[in-house]
């Protein structure tokens, strides 16, 4: 289990991570979402003890990462595909990792098989494509058979086949009872893989809830109503404090009210309904709404955040 307690990181005057407190539960895929520069990568780096928190703490199984004697057996992490020396072969890279944590060297062959790199195990990592680099990073994360896995943008650079593979891998790791913490900027990806969402913006926690709750809570989650007397019903719904949007002749899109309440209003007004159906917001819509006020590098109109990682390159 990963626990963040008031985790804060400041670079000079700039607060990158701001009093973040989250517990990540086992047996679930927790998606970590936020606009570029929201502090996702910095948070993950603090969990691994690469960056030192300005205040607060990040704990792995109740202890700071630096105190773990065999960290790879507790938590496996893929931060980026570039944490490999380009002059070493995949096998040499993984063998060194295994030895550092007293893991049997036969695990190297096993994880290479798992990620599908057996054929290129003795090639130097500098020749690898981004996708192969990601697979090598994931192999390293799996090496210690850890209970917690943390992936930063794991589908970056993977082809559709690779994306499907990693989706299945994360689901099966969670099904085995492990904690899976994965950041992504691809909402559709999260919608299909994550159970729980942690959303941050400008370093602050915006939401920490099951994915279904995040979608339901969105004001964009609406109810579609069709009625032969739309004007009258619209009037009554507005009086009841709901927001109504007219679509075509007899269709209303109602937000801010449940189906029960809308049905009740219609019944009282004596208006017949031809349709009363839920219209869920997509995760993308819910997310955009949540983070609208905290997009740091977004277009002025509040357009979608640019694709890409939020890693500030630091060598």
């Amino acid at each position: 289990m990963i626990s963040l307690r008031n985790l804060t990181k400041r670079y000079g005057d700039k607060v990158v991570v701001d009093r973040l407190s989250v517990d990540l539960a086992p047996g679930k895929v927790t998606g970590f979402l936020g606009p570029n520069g929201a502090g996702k990568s910095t948070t993950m780096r603090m969990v691994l003890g690469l960056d030192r928190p300005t205040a607060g703490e990040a704990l792995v199984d109740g202890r700071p990462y630096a105190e773990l004697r065999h960290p790879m057996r507790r938590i496996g992490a893929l931060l980026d595909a570039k944490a490999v020396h380009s002059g070493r072969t995949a096998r040499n890279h993984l063998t060194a990792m295994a030895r550092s944590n007293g893991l049997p060297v036969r695990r190297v062959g096993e994880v290479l098989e798992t990620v599908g790199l057996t054929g290129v195990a003795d090639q130097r990592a500098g020749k690898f494509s981004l996708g192969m680099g990601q697979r090598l990073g994931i192999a390293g994360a799996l090496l210690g058979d850890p209970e917690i896995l943390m992936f930063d943008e794991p589908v970056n650079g993977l082809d559709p086949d690779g994306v499907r593979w990693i989706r299945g891998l994360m689901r099966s790791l969670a099904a085995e009872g492990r904690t899976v913490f994965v950041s992504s900027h691809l909402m559709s990806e999260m919608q299909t893989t994550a159970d729980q969402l942690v959303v941050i913006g400008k370093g602050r926690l915006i939401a920490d809830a099951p994915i279904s709750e995040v979608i339901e809570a969105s004001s964009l989650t609406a109810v579609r109503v069709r009625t032969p007397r739309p004007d009258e019903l619209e009037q009554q719904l507005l009086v009841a404090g709901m927001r109504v949007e007219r679509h075509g002749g007899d269709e209303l899109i109602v937000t801010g009210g449940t189906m029960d309440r809308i049905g009740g209003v219609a019944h009282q007004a004596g208006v017949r309904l031809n349709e009363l159906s839920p219209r869920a917001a997509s995760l993308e819509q819910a997310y955009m709404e949540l983070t609208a006020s905290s997009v740091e590098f977004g277009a002025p109109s509040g357009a979608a955040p640019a694709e890409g990682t939020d890693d500030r390159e630091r060598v």
Partner: protein
Amino acid sequence: MATTAQERRGEPQQSGGGLPGAIAAEWTKLWGLRSTWLCLGVAVLLTGGTALLASLALQANGTADGMTANALGYTSTLLSQFAMVAAASLLITGEYATGAVRTTLTTVPARARVVLAKVAVLAVTSFATGCVAGAAVIAGAAAVVGDVMEFEAAHVLHEIAGTGGYFLGISLFTLGLGLLVRSTAGTLSIAFGVLLAIPSISQIVGNETVTAFVDHTPPMTGASLMSGATEPYGWGTGALLLAAWAALALAAGYTALARRDA
């Protein structure tokens, strides 16, 4: 409730890792790089080659008579030491340049353990390389002026162990610099300055205080360690001085590693 990884494995897995694991990992990484083989090979060949050239020059001038076998040690490593220094630097700066340092620090999170493991691996490697380079000096000298030079066991031993000790010292000094500076170019520039430029400049300046200080810096300890010079100090003091410089650089490097974000 799903089974945990520990239960699945059916073994407690509390052994292994720690400092021995970190050393094993560093050893694996060091020898998994072509640059290591290249640098160390060049260090040995260049040392032996320089000794051979120097011997030929001595023979031509007829000045080899009565010289001891280890007299060529200092000259022979003037250039070749930088191949050793490059290997020492790459042990850490190569990781910063490629991003591999993030893997090193996540697999071995205790910073002191990382430094100790690198020190252990580099100490063994640089000492061994220095001994082989020292032997190459003896071989080069023996091949050309073997008949007129003095090859007593003490001289031979001094040359071999002295070069080993000198390479060990400057390698650990460089490792400390690398931890502090992080970049390969920066580390090598400083090492080049300390080992070559500063002694040359001080000779030109000729100020007594400056000379006295420079006499106690790493490159000048080499003369006492390898060639058996007794002025201004013998090999024992030279070894202590070089160890102190290495310890100073490593302490600064460790502090930087422990304090700064990776």
